[in-house]
């Protein structure tokens, strides 16, 4: 909401009522670029706008509405709720992503939602690398009343995943959520380690991991595109969660990602608290980018 009012100011400042000409289109393109959509995606959207309205009189509200509409068209198909197949017991959710993007926190928030829905959740502290990553997840397990399986710093993450699956099976958990260490997508040894976790899980249940979630930080720029590309190839990412949308970053790169990868976006993170995880609403997100009040 904060971001949209900021932008609304910009757009209404741009127009009272004037012809949609090249200068205006350039201003609009600039606004989209500042929301991190990237040059190409921004151009595609302003081109569509131009095709419909070039040379016609438009007001700021018109333009905001049309732009939001174009962005919604891209995002609508990827706004899907997270669905679990509970015939798998446990349904295994693997959480992956670049360092500091919000994996562990999102697991905590997600566990709260799932146990709130009456499901029995187990967590696995698969980040055996970062200092106190295990302790961090333990606190989230406590907060959400989830079970947790963990080992020691430096332990083999794939081994831990294996162990956690066995225990979840034994305890009849409905869902097993596995945390992993953050890694940059250009580090091939670390990506190979992730691949190994996926492989080990596949041996326990050919369909596991049933869901692979990737967290993306809304403040990230164009690199997020490449993050999705590689994590998807290596770990079979099946859905995205964009975090940190409570700041001023608008996360516009998600529009480019949606257009290219068409991966579902399940939730957005809007704070550090346990309840700060909201469903992804294409229209709201698009309106925030285009500066239209919801």
């Amino acid at each position, binding site marked *: 909401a904060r971001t949209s009012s900021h932008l609304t100011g910009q757009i209404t400042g741009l127009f009272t009522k004037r012809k949609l000409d090249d200068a205006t289109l350039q201003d609009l393109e600039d606004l989209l670029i*500042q929301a991190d959509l990237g040059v190409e995606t921004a151009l595609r959207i302003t081109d569509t706008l131009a095709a419909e309205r070039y040379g016609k009189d438009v007001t700021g509200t018109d333009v905001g509405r049309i732009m939001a509409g174009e962005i919604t068209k891209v995002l609508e198909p990827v706004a899907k709720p997270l669905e679990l197949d509970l015939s798998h017991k446990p349904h295994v959710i693997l959480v992956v992503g670049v360092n500091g993007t919000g994996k562990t926190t999102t697991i905590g928030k997600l566990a709260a939602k799932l146990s709130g829905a009456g499901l029995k959740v187990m967590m696995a502290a698969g980040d055996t690398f970062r*200092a106190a990553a295990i*302790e961090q997840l333990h606190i*989230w397990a406590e907060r959400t009343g989830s079970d947790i399986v963990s080992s020691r710093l430096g332990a083999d993450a794939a081994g831990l995943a294996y162990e956690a699956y066995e225990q979840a099976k034994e305890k009849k958990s409905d869902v097993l959520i596995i945390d992993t260490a953050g890694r940059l997508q250009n580090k091939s040894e670390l990506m190979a380690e992730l691949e190994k976790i996926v492989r080990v899980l596949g041996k326990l249940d050919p369909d596991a991991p049933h869901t692979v979630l990737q967290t993306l930080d809304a403040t990230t720029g164009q690199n997020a595109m490449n993050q999705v590309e590689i994590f998807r190839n290596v770990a079979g990412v099946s859905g995205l969660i964009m975090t940190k949308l409570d*700041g001023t*970053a608008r996360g516009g790169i998600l529009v480019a990602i949606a257009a290219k990868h068409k991966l579902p976006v399940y939730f957005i993170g809007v704070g*550090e608290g346990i309840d700060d995880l909201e469903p992804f609403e294409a229209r709201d997100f698009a309106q925030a980018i285009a500066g239209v009040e919801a």
Partner: protein
Amino acid sequence: MFETLQDRLGAILNGLTGRGSLSEADVSAALREVRRALLEADVALEVVRSFTDAVREKAVGAEILKSIKPGQMVVKIVHDELVAMLGSEGVSIDLNAAAPVVIMMVGLQGSGKTTTSGKIANRLKTRDKKKVLMASLDTRRPAAQEQLRQLGVQTGVDTLPIIAGQSPTDIAARAVQAAKLGGHDVVILDTAGRTHIDEPLMIEMAEIKRKSNPHEILLVADALTGQDAVNLARNFDDRVGITGLVLTRMDGDGRGGAALSMRAVTGKPIKLIGVGEKMGELEEFHPRRVADRILGMGDIVSLVEKAAEHI
């Protein structure tokens, strides 16, 4: 991943055949591509604008070296201007103050403050033979204090004992006190991550500064940051007056345009860069390397430099 500026300028380079000095038209054509390259490298739009204006001013009418195409000449000017704007190298952490010298780390959530605190402590200890104390003021994020404690154990650097329930400002005061008593040369205060529009936390940050009188306030920011880099850098700087920047995750394959954005809006030097998760993975900042990365065209620059040598 990115099409390099060099690839894109190719057509323009070949198209421009003017001789003598760079014309307005030559410069404009090349600058359109430069603009795009900078945006794709995540340089913030407002910074791109003032940057291309500065280049235009320098480039129009500039003498073209023999054997160099006009477009190449523009690229060289762009590169040099970029290096100049990124600032000089080797502006390291300043310890020139009465001991214990306080270094305060600030930044958005997850940017790398705690890891960088450990890295800087490790560096001051092993390279500069300083006695360092680290203190975590992060009472919010689960296990944040424990994370810093473990990094202290890993690096053999003292950490302030954790007292549950103490406020960040009280911990800051206690840390400075403990460092005085303990004969520490440097105290590193690791603070909780905060978004720059979270008013209570921004007030808390200013309060921590008031209580601990830091000599260095380092903004730790992710090199992969997009357009928001200008907003966050400006806000942190306005609220506490940062003394320098540390860019983390420079080991990623992003272009790192945020470096230019943050440096341009704050005027503060980039003091160090993080190039990995391990305690030793902290390096000096080299503006030239980052400029090459942002533009992806080291070849043209060396070509023009060679031509210049032959005059």
